[in-house]
């Protein structure tokens, strides 16, 4: 009961603090809108530009040149020639999204009427739609080129035959015959293309997963970041209570230390839940009203609720740790910045965790933010169910327990 009294009093104080209200409830929405707006402007800018296609030309011959000019003139694709050395490495490092390789025997093969194969490789994170668009352009140019070559070759052959044929056989080269021949060549080019495309995506055997939208990344990420930022409020509230001396007064009252700490942690927990609800509602409905793509809240409300409760609890426990470790207001500010923003950045709240995994390896997995982001991402973006995210929730609760124990161990009641 006393814990509730303390929590109620802290909420009363909190509601009078406009700065804190702005930071906890409005700032996340500002971040999400700003993030979505910037991303939308980049996307709009990208739409005006041709899709970059990096090409390694191992052939360098006449037909390869013709093919490259054809690609460039086809529109939609911007050809950029790069050296063969290190080209694959650039693709693996995601420096280039896709790479087209023209084989060494391209010109020779075309000239001889053999089928040659172009190789198109794309990075797993490259946009599927753009890769498909690039493939269609390549295919179109290759097909046109092959058709043109085959028809020209057959007409040349017909011309030579006509020149050498006796008078009596001239009717064999009548216009109707030549047209029929050309039509036959066209049909053949369709059935037996001179140029084929082999398309691969390294390290990915199955279908490429569609990347989440900006809002789908921003809403769970900033939810986790700002829910954990409420830990700072817990630490500051405890510090303020000690600073003004009311903590001593509470200690002199018939109230247990556990109730006292619970009372200080509870407002953080409630705040985190309200904060999450506001961000989710804004993500689902507010973004749509502002013209951005809204987020989905997944298909398992129980899993989502448990994930939010686990994250809020973990944040509250982290607040006790910060309050226990920091002795001054400056230390609270410093520790909070270091721990909360640092963990948020490394744990995938700002840069998506699936990208950080590629950059930092297993390091993010040691942070609670990673598991919080993963849980929300799995539920909201990937539509996973409670059973699928149970590991993330268990790890989060483990962090919570560890934070509470460390906080209680280091907490200075004197």
């Amino acid at each position: 009961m006393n814990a509730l009294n303390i929590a109620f009093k802290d909420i009363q104080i909190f509601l009078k603090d406009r700065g804190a209200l702005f930071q906890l409830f409005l700032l996340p929405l500002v971040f999400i809108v700003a993030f979505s707006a910037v991303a939308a402007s980049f996307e709009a800018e990208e739409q005006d530009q041709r899709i970059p296609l990096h090409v390694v030309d191992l052939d360098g011959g006449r037909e390869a040149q013709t093919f490259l000019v054809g690609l460039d003139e086809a529109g939609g694709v911007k050809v950029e020639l790069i050296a063969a050395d290190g080209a694959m490495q650039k693709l693996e490092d995601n420096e280039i999204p896709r790479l087209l390789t023209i084989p060494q025997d391209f010109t020779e093969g075309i000239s001889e009427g053999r089928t040659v194969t172009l190789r198109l490789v794309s990075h797993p994170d490259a946009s599927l739609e753009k890769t498909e668009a690039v493939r269609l352009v390549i295919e179109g140019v290759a097909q046109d080129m092959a058709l043109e070559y085959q028809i020209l070759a057959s007409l040349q052959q017909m011309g030579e035959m006509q020149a050498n044929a006796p008078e009596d056989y001239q009717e064999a080269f009548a216009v109707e015959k030549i047209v029929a021949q050309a039509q036959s060549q066209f049909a053949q080019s369709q059935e037996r293309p001179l140029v084929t495309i082999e398309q691969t995506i390294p390290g990915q055997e199955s279908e490429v997963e569609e990347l989440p939208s900006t809002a789908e990344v921003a809403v769970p990420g900033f939810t986790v970041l700002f829910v954990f930022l409420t830990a700072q409020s817990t630490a500051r509230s405890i510090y303020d209570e000690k600073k003004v001396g009311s903590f001593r007064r509470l200690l002199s009252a018939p109230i247990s230390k556990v109730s006292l700490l619970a009372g200080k942690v509870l407002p953080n927990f409630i705040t985190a839940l309200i904060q999450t609800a506001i961000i989710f509602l804004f993500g689902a409905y507010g973004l749509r009203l502002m013209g951005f793509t809204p987020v989905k809240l997944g298909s398992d409300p129980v899993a989502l609720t448990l994930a939010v409760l686990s994250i809020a609890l973990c944040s509250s426990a982290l607040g006790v740790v910060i309050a226990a470790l920091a002795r001054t207001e400056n230390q609270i500010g410093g520790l909070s910045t270091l721990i909360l923003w640092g963990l948020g950045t490394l744990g995938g709240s700002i840069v998506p965790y699936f990208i950080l995994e590629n950059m930092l390896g297993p390091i993010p997995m040691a942070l609670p933010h990673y598991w919080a982001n993963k849980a929300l991402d799995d539920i909201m973006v990937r539509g996973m169910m409670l059973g699928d995210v149970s590991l993330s929730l268990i790890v989060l609760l483990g962090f919570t327990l560890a934070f509470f124990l460390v906080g209680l161990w280091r907490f200075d009641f004197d």
Partner: protein
Amino acid sequence: MPAILEVDHLVKKYGDFEAVKGISFEVEAGEVFGLLGPNGAGKTQTISMLTGVIEPTSGSARVGGYDIHSDMDKAKRINGLVPQDLALYPTLSARANLNFFGRIYGLGGKDLKERVEDVLRIVALTERADEAVEHYSGGMKRRVNIAAGLLHHPKLLFLDEPTVGVDPQSRNHIFESVMRLNRERGMSIVYTSHYMEEVELLCNRVAIIDQGEIIALDTIKNLIALLGGGVIHVGLERVDDDLLTELSNLKGVKSAELTTQPVPPPPSEEDDVETIEREPASTNPVVKVVAEHSQTAVVNVISYLNEKDITLTSLEILEPNLESVFLHLTGKKLRE
């Protein structure tokens, strides 16, 4: 009178530092008991142990018969603490603060409302009770601070330096409140201060505490009697044992001894120490003369020194009060 507080060899250590060195005293029911000592003497640490804010390192105490180790929860319901800090929530109103502290003691409903009104009346803040505390003057905040300690009707109230930083009007109001609570409600009070005049005004008995130890404990009258007729500090060019013996034998002089402390610096405007006369500080030896009658002793000492042609470098006559007692016992002023 039965004792409402019994303190037995209470010790508080922080590592090697002993903040409270085994103090013992008793407070009788209905008594106003003073803990007088300079800042850092151990007063707040002592109160903190008795109210359950911190754990004693050793020793024991009983509050209203309840042991502070085994029955602290019951003891806490008898105790009331008015801490030295303004232990209030500045953005909340006085009424909201009091409601909260009342609920912490299990009060609620009509009872809580009545008690809040009652304590607001005691500290004369009913009319401004709904204003945020941060808009109050220092004295008004102190009064709310006291009110918060009265809500649960404690039998024993610890007032820890309750007048620090308040204006004279609020100080007088606090004194009146303390006297009324004691007189009309029979509340026992432990009053800590480093202002000797407050303790002299309010307390029946006083424990003088310095460096974690009680160096004297008695009624104010008896403590002052330690000084006899007063103390005179006599600065001289030279002192020897024969001179001290001669001075001790003069009429009106109880004893004369060389002090180990130099004469304190001249008083500032804020000093409350009442001196009849004071000369500039001297680096010459100073003899502390404890008088049976200060006027007779001064006349005789000066006559003797003139007769012996010994130059007087300074003279300070300390009026018999607790400040002088403290100086007499410790060789230093209360606010050093």
